[in-house]
């Protein structure tokens, strides 16, 4: 695909955004905007797919835009093509979903112009081939997504979320700005080609890598830079939440891969260790936070943090292996990370669509007010269940394959020569295992409390199934989850050009294996065949059902459900989301979350109701952001005083500064 075609599509998306300003008020405007976005995204998706599958050579183009005499550089290579697929797959399906969901938007003009512009900006970030275009489109992407985060601005919490998002996004862009400054060096070479050719000293490479980890990581949501994410992602409308969580975090991952793998060059092994360790901590803390939540969309947003952690574990391993020259292992780790990028974008979009549908049908995000929705929204419930199974890494769905590949890469880590890596990476593997198990618990809770049991509120009682656009969008993603789980070999084969370009190798045994198997290292050690597992599951389930129906009674009996000996009719007496999370809260709560449980039990004989209150805090707030905010505030109050000094005091300040500088010069020599 020539890069010009991609740019034309980006221009088309921006144009749709402009048109949306004019036609956004009319009812047909919503359909036109989302339909056009769907069309353009699908075109780019097709182009990018052909580019990746045919393993086309990189194509670049320079437009005479932007900085005079420098122009704007764009390039599409295998990595860019892969992320174009992520962006436009998410964009296209979110557009289908929005055809139904967006029609119920109270103020469409607050969303419609931003939506295509957001898609265009994400495409532009991926296509950019110089620092100027990259940063410009990166910041534009942050800005238009902010517009959609505060779309429902009458809710005070949304405005606060938007503010925190804006602060974090600016901070991240600042770090990336400095990282590119280090990469460009004193010569000021802003094109990526020049940065790729340049050689950095190890110290400078470490500085640039750290800045990129902070800058791109704050967009992706690594702990402790994740704080904006669980606030901002749920605040946006449903389809935008899916894009923010499923796609924009991946653009953050893209920024990290582009700079660290492509531009910086040779890493030190311990850089990989740092990235993998941060990934492990992010994964474990993310899923623990998610378990504590009872807001469905916020739970999903915290869960994004966990998956970003898994992706960063893979990236860190790839860095460590590449630094030691073990290309095939690096390719395995990178393929696992990229596969998880794809998988997460699919099932997280699916889950956010499900949450959006629940929100639309009931007006509730709080799980404590939901329940029993499987009877009234069976299709949504089925799609959500598949998404839950995929994200909990159950075979034969796609989440299992990528997490399994990550584990395979961790199991290769004894081959690394450095003792530090040999010791720490298994610990990261333990964190990964912990988070995988907790993720399953988390989604048993999310699905069980939301869709099973009895309705806990009138709104949940009166819910109805959503329209066909939303169901189509969800079922396309369900199909993708299943297909990528059963035929992972095709995805891994398609990723081969990316790994070959970035780490100089591919998975050795993998190229176009028969019987659709996945063999990460050698067939004698481990292999996986999704189709076989699916056939086994279907076969054994059918057999079990047949045997039960053959030997047990076929008659359907209706009887009261088991009520633990408390025949209480109220649905409030059901197992709630906080009671589900209670054991884990007791184990980790006091140390990690500073959980405050307050029980107000009336004495025997008193007639008033008892109260139980649980408050969970994100430790990042009081450990990091609270002190920062306080010091900024006190510095501001101090500096405010300087504004009202006498003339002589100002002269004294100037004089003092001059003398101090002279003293520094004198001491320097």
């Amino acid at each position, binding site marked *: 695909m020539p890069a010009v075609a991609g740019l034309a599509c980006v221009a088309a998306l921006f144009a749709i955004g402009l048109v949306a300003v004019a036609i956004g008020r009319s009812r047909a405007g919503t359909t036109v905007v989302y339909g056009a976005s769907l069309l353009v995204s699908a075109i780019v998706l097709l182009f990018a797919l052909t580019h990746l599958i045919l393993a086309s050579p990189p194509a670049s183009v320079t437009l005479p835009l932007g900085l005079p005499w420098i122009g704007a550089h764009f390039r599409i290579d295998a990595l860019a093509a892969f992320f174009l697929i992520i962006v436009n797959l998410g964009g296209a399906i979110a557009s289908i979903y929005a055809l139904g969901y967006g029609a119920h938007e109270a103020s469409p003009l607050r969303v419609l112009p931003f939506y295509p512009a957001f898609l265009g900006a994400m495409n532009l970030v991926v296509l950019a081939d110089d620092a100027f275009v990259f940063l410009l489109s990166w910041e534009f992407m942050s800005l238009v997504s902010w517009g959609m985060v505060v779309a429902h601005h009458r809710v005070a919490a949304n405005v606060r979320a938007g503010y925190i998002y804006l602060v974090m996004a600016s901070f991240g862009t600042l770090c990336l700005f400095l990282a590119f400054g280090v990469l460009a060096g004193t010569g000021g070479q802003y094109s990526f080609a020049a940065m790729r050719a340049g050689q950095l000293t190890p110290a400078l490479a470490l500085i640039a890598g750290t800045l990129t980890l902070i800058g791109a990581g704050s967009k992706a949501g690594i702990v402790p830079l994740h704080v904006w994410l669980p606030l901002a992602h749920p605040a946006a409308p449903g389809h935008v939440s899916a894009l923010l969580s499923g796609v924009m975090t991946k653009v953050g991952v893209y920024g990290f891969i582009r700079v660290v793998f492509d531009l910086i060059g040779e890493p030190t092994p311990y850089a990989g260790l740092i990235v993998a360790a941060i990934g492990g901590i992010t994964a474990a803390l993310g899923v623990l936070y998610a378990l504590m939540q009872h807001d469905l969309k916020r739970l999903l947003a915290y869960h994004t943090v966990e998956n970003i952690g898994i992706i960063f574990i893979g990236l860190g391993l790839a860095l460590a292996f590449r630094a030691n020259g073990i290309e095939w292992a690096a390719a395995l780790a990178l393929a696992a990370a990229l596969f998880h990028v794809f998988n997460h974008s699919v099932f997280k979009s699916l889950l956010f669509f499900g949450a959006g549908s629940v929100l639309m049908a009931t007006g509730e995000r709080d799980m404590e007010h939901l329940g029993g929705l499987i009877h009234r929204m069976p299709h949504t419930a089925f799609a959500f269940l598949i998404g839950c199974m995929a994200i909990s890494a159950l075979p034969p769905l796609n989440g299992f394959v990528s997490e399994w590949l990550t584990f395979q890469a961790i199991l290769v880590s004894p081959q690394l020569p450095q003792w530090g890596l040999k010791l720490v990476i298994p610990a990261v593997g333990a964190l990964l295992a912990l988070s995988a198990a907790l993720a399953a618990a988390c989604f048993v809770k999310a699905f069980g409390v939301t869709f099973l049991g009895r309705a806990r509120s009138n709104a949940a009682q009166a819910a109805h199934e959503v329209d066909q656009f939303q169901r189509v969008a969800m079922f396309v993603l369900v199909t993708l989850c299943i297909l990528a789980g059963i035929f992972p070999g095709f995805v891994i084969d398609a990723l081969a050009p990316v790994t070959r370009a970035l780490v100089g190798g591919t998975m050795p045994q993998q190229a176009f294996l028969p019987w659709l198997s996945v063999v990460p290292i050698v067939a004698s050690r481990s292999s996986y065949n999704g189709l076989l597992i699916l056939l086994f599951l279907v076969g054994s389930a059918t057999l079990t059902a047949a045997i039960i129906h053959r030997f047990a009674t076929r008659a359907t009996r209706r009887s009261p459900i088991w009520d633990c000996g408390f025949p209480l009719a109220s649905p409030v007496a059901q197992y709630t989301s906080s009671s589900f999370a209670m054991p884990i809260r007791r184990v980790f709560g006091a140390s990690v979350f500073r959980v405050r449980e307050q029980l107000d039990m009336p004495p025997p004989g008193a007639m008033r109701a008892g109260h139980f209150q649980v408050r969970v805090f994100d430790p990042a707030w009081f450990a990091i952001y609270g002190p920062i905010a306080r010091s900024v505030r006190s510095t501001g109050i101090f500096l405010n005083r300087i504004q009202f000094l*006498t*003339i002589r005091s100002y*002269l004294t300040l100037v004089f003092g500064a001059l*003398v101090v500088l002279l003293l520094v010069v004198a001491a320097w020599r």
Partner: protein
Amino acid sequence: MDTIGFDIAHLLSGGMLVLSLLLLFQTRIIAVINVFALQAIVLALSVAWQAYLQQAPHLMVTAAIALIVKGLIIPFALQRIVRRLDIHREVETVIAAGPTMLAGLALVALSILLLQPSEGSVLTREDLAFALAVILLGLLMMITRRNAVTQIIGFMSLENGLILAATGSRGMPLVVEISVAFSILIAFVVFGIFVFRIRERFDTVDVAAIDRFRGERREHL
């Protein structure tokens, strides 16, 4: 360069520095103005001597400007202002004379420490060190005095240091000197007008009155 020429240049620059320190120590306004006039005359001598040493006749023009404008016209005008405004009082200092002198000596030490190891000929180096000390002392005078007239003199003394620095090094064009001289004159005119305006409005030339008027003066100052 002959040693006697060097010694005389050194003597004159050193004299300016001593006069700067003397400025800091004066307690009456008339005395301050007289010492400033003396410093301007020494500056003129120093510049003239540099003109002779460097064979640069245009420096003579600078010396003449310094002598006439700063040595005669400005002190005369200042004395007239003081008489017309009737402020023959003691200089109101913020910090007592003793600590100010100590600070001044520290500044002199700092400038010598700063410029002693630098490149260049001995004369340029010493000259620059003296000039920097004069500049810093002028600034110190501006921030340790409350009276507008003494603040003006601090500023003028600072300008003297600048001219000393400029003429000590070879090859400064006449245009720069003339523009510096004019800027001083204009600054003087502006300051003078300000002093009269301040006096008209507040019945004093103590700049603390302006601070009080702005409502920003704190009582403990």
